[in-house]
């Protein structure tokens, strides 16, 4: 039961399809825990390591040779901004998983610069996640995770790791960076899973 705030009416310009506690922004705010890593496209690599330790690696050229999709999705940051109808270009994670022999349930995502985040493998497959390298028609800027970031729009945006360089698949769940610092392990914006215990 909420306490009513004396005198507060609110502006009520929230779009009807926002998750609870979110507000609409037209900017693209940046949130990062440290300096922005500058990774050249030609130096970028992406490696999936399965639960047996087998590795598959893709280079920038490999990435561009894969069939791309152009998802237009709503994104929701745990710091409460949401941005609707953002347009990306990238490759479905399903395409990468076709090359990987795995029955693992969990993934840790690793980024250049040391960032990590965790999520169930089932949230990465069946058309729910992409490795994206273009945003609104341009190369993805380093501030926003370029050259390549993960895009998992159905979870809070900290799960969409910037500067992505790999996935480690495992039968056990290992919490990532924010997940060990008080943020929710799963992060469903529609259930407002912002912090541990929500």
């Amino acid at each position, binding site marked *: 039961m909420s306490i009513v705030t004396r005198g507060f009416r*609110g502006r009520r310009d929230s779009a009807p399809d926002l998750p609870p506690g979110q507000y609409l922004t037209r900017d693209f705010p940046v949130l990062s825990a440290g300096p922005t890593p500058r990774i050249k496209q030609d130096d970028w690599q992406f490696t999936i390591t399965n639960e047996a330790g087998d590795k598959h690696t893709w280079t920038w050229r490999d990435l561009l040779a894969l069939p791309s999709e152009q998802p237009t999705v709503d994104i929701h940051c745990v710091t409460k901004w949401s941005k609707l109808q953002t347009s990306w270009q990238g490759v479905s994670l399903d395409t990468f998983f076709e090359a990987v022999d795995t029955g693992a349930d969990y993934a840790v995502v690793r980024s250049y610069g040391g960032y990590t985040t965790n999520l169930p493998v089932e949230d990465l497959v069946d058309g729910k996640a992409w490795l994206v390298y273009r945003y609104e028609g341009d190369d993805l800027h380093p501030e926003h995770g370029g050259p390549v970031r993960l895009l998992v729009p159905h979870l809070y945006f900290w799960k969409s790791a910037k500067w992505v360089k790999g996935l480690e698949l495992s039968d056990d769940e290992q919490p990532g960076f924010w997940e060990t610092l008080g943020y929710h392990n799963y992060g469903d914006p529609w259930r407002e899973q912002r912090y541990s215990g929500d």
Partner: protein
Amino acid sequence: MVLRWLPGKVADIRVETPTSRTIVFDVPDWAGHLAGQHIDVRLTAEDGYSVQRSYSLAAPADEDRIEILVQKVTDGEVSPFLVDDLLPDDVIELRGPIGGWFTWEPSLGKPVSLVAGGSGIVPLMAMIRARTQAGSDAGFKLLYSVRGPADEYYAEELGKHGIEVTTIYTRSESPSGRPPGRIRPEDLSVLWPADAGARTYVCGPTGFVEAAAQALVDQGHDPGTIRTERFGPSGG
């Protein structure tokens, strides 16, 4: 641990600049927090419509008493209410503390560089106050960039903590005679050099943080020693 919404009763409101206020809350059973952490604030209208925003805590907890600084964002939904309409004894909901990365504790045992842009000073002020409260002798150096003297938060207090403070103005000449302008790589020379083993905290708008953090890396600082927190322009 569940972060419950708690009633925060407004104990004091202080004018920091014409468009910003320090708001002090009494929060029964506040669990304490680290310097650099923030809270979520929730405002609810009579018909149940509600909005949330995050604000950095500006000081160590004084038992159940905590404080934030709110800068009014002209087209915002929450900050104009907090700056213009909130009164002492009002009760609003808040929860926290939140964020375990952009934090400082006296036990760190390293010198500290602080780089603030505008209202990005707030979590850094919490660190400065925490240092004083703990009687720590950690070497703190602050570089603080604001538009001009009228926009300087904590202007009087900053000089009283026994730390090195350098203020630069983006739209007028700085006290040192520096011409107006946004942060430049050479401005960072007042901070600890790359080989001093310091940790650096950078907080401000995205463009400011990007420029400062990149310049520090270019000057040889290990990226792993630089912690950042960025405010989008739409913090409303």
